[in-house]
């Protein structure tokens, strides 16, 4: 039973690949591919059973092909299931050797929606410093009378073809049966 993918995810998988691929250079191209991808996945039975969603949906589009030293623009769009309130978007790059923000790029933006707007939209520019698969972490938060309601996501920026560098956690060893185990240190 439980199967399926978040169908919109899979529907847009092709898109996401396109967004990170060598050929993606314009929104027109993406839009056409989006239609094809959506139609191709019209069968919704492909999934996974996921946790309840946060109150925000963050969408993104990467403009152009990320290459070392050249600014990469990421268009962000955030919608909220909460009543419209000012929203703060925070951007974070975990590894300063991988990417940096463009000089004029703030790492936090507070926004309000105009009356006729349905979504918060922002453009973020980062500059890859080397090849690899990196992440622009985006968090969206709103202050309510009960505290901060927030969510986040990691936007993958593929520079060249190098795979993601995994964070090492503990030590990979073998147990008495020769099976791999990840050993964490206790105290």
């Amino acid at each position: 039973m439980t199967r399926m993918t978040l169908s919109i995810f899979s529907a847009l998988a092709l898109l996401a690949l396109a967004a990170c691929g060598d050929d993606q250079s314009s929104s027109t191209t993406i839009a056409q591919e989006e239609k094809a991808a959506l139609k191709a996945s019209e069968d919704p039975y492909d999934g996974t059973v996921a946790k309840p969603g946060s109150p925000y949906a963050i969408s993104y589009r990467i403009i152009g092909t990320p290459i070392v030293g050249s600014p990469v623009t990421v268009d962000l769009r955030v919608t909220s299931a909460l009543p419209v309130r000012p929203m703060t978007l925070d951007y974070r790059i975990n590894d300063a050797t991988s990417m940096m923000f463009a000089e004029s790029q703030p790492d936090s933006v507070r926004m309000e929606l105009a009356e006729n707007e349905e979504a918060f939209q922002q453009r973020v520019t980062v500059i890859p410093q080397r090849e690899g698969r990196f992440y622009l972490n985006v968090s969206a938060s709103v202050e309510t009378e009960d505290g901060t309601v927030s969510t986040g996501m990691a936007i993958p920026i593929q520079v060249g073809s190098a795979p993601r560098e995994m964070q090492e956690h503990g030590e990979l060893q073998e147990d008495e049966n020769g099976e791999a185990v990840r050993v964490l240190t206790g105290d």
Partner: protein
Amino acid sequence: MNMLKDLKPGKFLLPLIASLAVSACSSGGSGDSSGGSGNRSPVAVAGADQTVSEFAAVTIDGGGSSDPDAGTTLSYAWTQTAGAVVALTNANTAQANFDAPDVTAVNTPTTLTFRLTVSDGTASASDTMNVVVNDVGLGINSPPVANAGPDQTRAELTTVNLDGTASLDPDGDAITHAWLQTGGPNVALSNATVASPSFTSPDVAAATPEVLTFQLTVDDGTDFSTDTVEITIQEALSAVTVSGTLEFEWVNPNNNCNGLNLNNPVLKPIRRATVELVDASNPTVVLASSVTGNDGSYSFTNIDANQDVQVQARAVLADGSPATWNVEVRDNTSNIGSPLTQRPIYIVRWPQFNTGVADNSDNNFVARTGWGGSSYTGTRAAAPFAILDSILDAMTMVTEVDSNAVFPNLDVYWSVNNTLTSPTDVDAGELSTTFYTNRGLYMLGDANVDTEEFDDHVSIHEWGHYFEDVFSRSDSFGGNHFIGDPLDPRVAFGEGFASALAAIALDNPVYCDTSGPNLLTSGFGINWESQNIGLVGWFNELSVGKLIYDLWDTGTDNGNDTGSIGFGPIYETMVGPQRTVGSFTTMFTFAAGLRPMLNATDLAFVDGQLNRINVDTAAGVDIWGDSQTTAPTNGTYSQGRDILPPYTELFVDAAPVNVCLNNDYFADFADGDSENKFGMFRHFRFTTTSTDSYTITATANPAPTATTTTGDDPPRDDSDPDLFLHRAVPQWWFPFATSTDDGNASEIFTTPTMSAGTYILRLQEWRHVDDSRAAGFPSQVCFDVSVSR
């Protein structure tokens, strides 16, 4: 509370391009914070943070608050949200007062947090401020606390260390130590006035241990206290018992689910986990293996004396022989290329020690969170055991009502690399969200984005999907879902049941989902008992979850929930009729399975709760929902149309039946994953009496006016129905046949050869599902649907 109590009615976007977020949102709810047209919200100003001395008279001033609407009188409400509780006076005025509490050298400075809420009678606003209280040496002396250490068993003629280092003074005053032997053969202490003196144990006769008693007195110059410890001395052994307790650091969420209280972890026992004693010089050599008790205790007997060993715990729950359950936590981002079920299991290994020549029972260890105050700086050893502990709570809930329950293997995939992005690539640690599929539970762990190990409701929610998978049946096909969404009833039931299961297992209706990067403050919560979001009904996961939780809990919901049937009947329904029911698993099948099990009193109670979520019971409840005659509406959404009957019955070779469906979800929510949303499809059922191929026809009637979308080649904006055919074999949830998409307004679907039996047909209008549909396409389309042989 940071609960989603005020979801707005609509306006969600179309995913831009590569979307992906946590979910496609939605949902309904109450009002706007401005309180209605014309009124503007007040502005709350709690004032600047303050630093004061203990016992000081403190005034907190919200006089800077204002309201943009002229002539408005504001009301004020101060509440304390964190720190040592103080008595607030004038809490309903702009300026509130309190006396700063006594602060000691140990806990200085102490931070108190206050929230000011101002209201103009229609709308409200809040702000918070902190008061930092410093110790200035005032207050009453607190006596010191003596701790003589744990009792010990040691061998004869060896050096024994007493341990008074855990003694303390709450005020931070310097303390002196004084040890005195009060029992047993006399021994000479190395220094009776230090925290940890030693002595040489006396020679004792075989099988005649001696007990030495020592009293420790600690003195801070004003007060003193004492504690005692017993040291049992026995003959040196060639084999010993090594025992102790394993614990892990658990982190609770902050109030209102505003992040995790990582700076104040609590210790919990590592329960029912595999524990091993290994050779310190070669840890692959396992000297002994066992399972921890419910109190985290473990014991290894007949272990060679005087050898260096280490204790390690595997992130595995595997009790019994054969195991009643087998849950393993693995790192999905290591050993890429090997099957997922062979990815590395987490092990926590503690420092080595010597087994000595006497039984020793104080080998106690802790798996830490790795939190360094503002970020993770150490190994996150607690995480795998935190996840297992939550799952154990859920499994225990089941075994309490079914002692014979056997749980098929479950693998949990967690990694510090598991980040929230899309599309999912498990090997790369890229997960679209935390999810369950195919006896695997995939959990986020990236501290910069989202971690799940201490979100116990999330862990058990996903385990609930596993429960449905292996103990019961779920016909849910998943998809994005946000609380309050109008969903396919299959999805709504599965999600609502899973969340209710978590609330029941944890005896807590508040679902917290904390997230990063500000792990101390970020997250959101849902109260499954008290919140109503969206249209209430069998298609809303919150309604379903609320119902099932209310059937179990003993709370009264202000007189609306006055009974409880416990978990037993819920379990029996899920593993019984729900598992084999001949239609999609929904609220209707659950209710139809449960109701016959109940006595009259419980039946009346259950029907009352079903009525609360708009499930009709006057004519009973059947698996198809034929008894449902009212379609809920709440005046905010339009999803109330085109949802009844839940299944339209078709008859072979009979005249077509005209039914309608709509994309009201898009109209109200304008975003995201629509295929699992209510109104976007219609379900039919029909029964065949002979083995044959059948023709199913769906023709738009009236046919919608074709629209044109620029860029479509060929144009495809006329009606485009799609048909999906379901049956029990191989399984209900996955269609065994689908119509060939031809893009025409009339779909003629010749089925494969079908044996006699009952079938479910699902109809959807692709133009409604398609994110790139033309704006002018009608929101409601009707079809003539027929089955012929």
